[in-house]
């Protein structure tokens, strides 16, 4: 039965398309997806997931339960960078440690989406308003990562870095993906059932198909980036799997404390375990220029992401099933 969960997840078309993308790189196929298309697919996913989340919020309203869950999610994403930083400093400099810590405090929308496809498949419900939790978890880790960096770096050698806090907050809270998901959520919440009726064929019915194409692309990119990391040895590789597991554990404890349902607990775990490869790298490159992007990008994109969508999700589910 346990194996069942893994198989159920692996035979999910989106997950299989991710591996197809990786296989294309291994076979040295010239399969390629133009950059503009990658961006379009990701715009679509953010738009659709935000709109659906907004519709769910419209249905559920802002109850105490919703607010407690959202606050828990924010706290969770703000704690992670602290211990992640502390662990990473054993091996890495301040800049790299801070950037990676921010990466793992934040989340990956596509991991969340893949988990929701998984839950649909195995027939477990989850609350649509968790999309709001996801959106709110993107930014805090960025701020904390940069705070850690500015607090602990040796004061020399960064004259070039002229970005101030104002810019940083803007990069954290108004970056394109956060903005689109939040905005679509607000619109989904405002337009309610009428809006959903008009947009359902576009946002709901096409969703899995677009997700497949996007994961195909992520597979291509992840496989290409992987080699960057493998040069770096085992510490970072191990970290990219063990930290998510620990984050998921922390999340499941919090989920139990605030009394989430089975599906919601799994989703919170997935959010905690996931790491950012879009919003955070863009912010880090500017705010922590001396951190090496060839570390933090492949860690989240080429190890944590595939781990989560293949083994992580069913593993977390097993755990929840045992505990609940």
């Amino acid at each position, binding site marked *: 039965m346990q194996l069942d969960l893994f198989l159920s997840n692996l035979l999910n078309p989106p997950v299989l398309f991710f591996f197809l993308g990786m296989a294309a790189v291994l076979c040295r196929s010239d399969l390629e997806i133009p*950059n*503009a298309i990658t961006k379009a697919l990701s715009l679509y996913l953010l738009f659709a997931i935000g709109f659906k989340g907004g519709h769910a919020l419209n249905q559920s309203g802002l109850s105490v339960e919703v607010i407690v869950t959202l606050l828990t999610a924010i706290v969770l994403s703000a704690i992670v960078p602290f211990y992640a930083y502390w662990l990473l400093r054993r091996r890495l400099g301040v800049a790299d440690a801070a950037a990676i810590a921010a990466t793992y405090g934040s989340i990956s929308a596509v991991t969340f989406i893949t988990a929701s496809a998984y839950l649909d498949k195995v027939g477990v419900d989850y609350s649509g308003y968790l999309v709001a939790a996801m959106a709110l978890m993107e930014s805090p880790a960025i701020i904390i990562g940069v705070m850690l960096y500015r607090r602990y770096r040796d004061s020399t050698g960064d*004259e*070039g870095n002229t970005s101030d806090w104002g810019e940083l907050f803007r990069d954290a809270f108004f970056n394109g993906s956060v903005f689109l998901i939040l905005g679509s959520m607000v619109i989904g919440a405002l337009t309610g059932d009428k809006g959903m009726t008009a947009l359902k064929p576009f946002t709901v019915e096409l969703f899995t198909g677009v997700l497949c194409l996007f994961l195909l692309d992520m597979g291509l990119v992840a496989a290409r980036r992987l080699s960057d990391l493998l040069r770096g040895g085992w510490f970072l590789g191990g970290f990219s799997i063990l930290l998510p597991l620990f984050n998921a554990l922390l999340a499941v404890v919090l989920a139990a404390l605030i009394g989430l349902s089975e599906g919601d607990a799994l989703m919170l775990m997935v959010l905690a375990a996931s790491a950012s490869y*879009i919003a955070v790298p*863009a912010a880090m490159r500017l705010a922590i*220029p001396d951190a090496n992007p*060839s570390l933090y990008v492949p860690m989240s*994109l080429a190890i944590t992401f595939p781990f989560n969508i293949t083994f992580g999700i069913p593993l977390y589910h097993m755990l929840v099933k045992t505990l609940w």
Partner: protein
Amino acid sequence: MYSVKRLEIVIDRSYLNRLLKELENCGIEGYTVLDQVRGKGERGLRESDALADIFTNAYILVACSEETAEKAVAAIRPLLKMSGGMCLLSDAQWVRH
């Protein structure tokens, strides 16, 4: 026609806006930008993947007076040091129209 300096810069696109601000501060009033070029240099291959969109370079072409070019070169050096990149200076004739 009169002589100008051609300044060619390749820089991590994340820093493009800062670079353009620096150039304008030095009195440069004209430039041409290619937003997406890829390349190889000391920091290895840099090819965009559009997901983590931080592995792309931008290319900037500036025609300006020798004096301005010198000021600009001095001003952008720290930025290039931080971000990596390339800066070439060459000679050209500006065709007046």
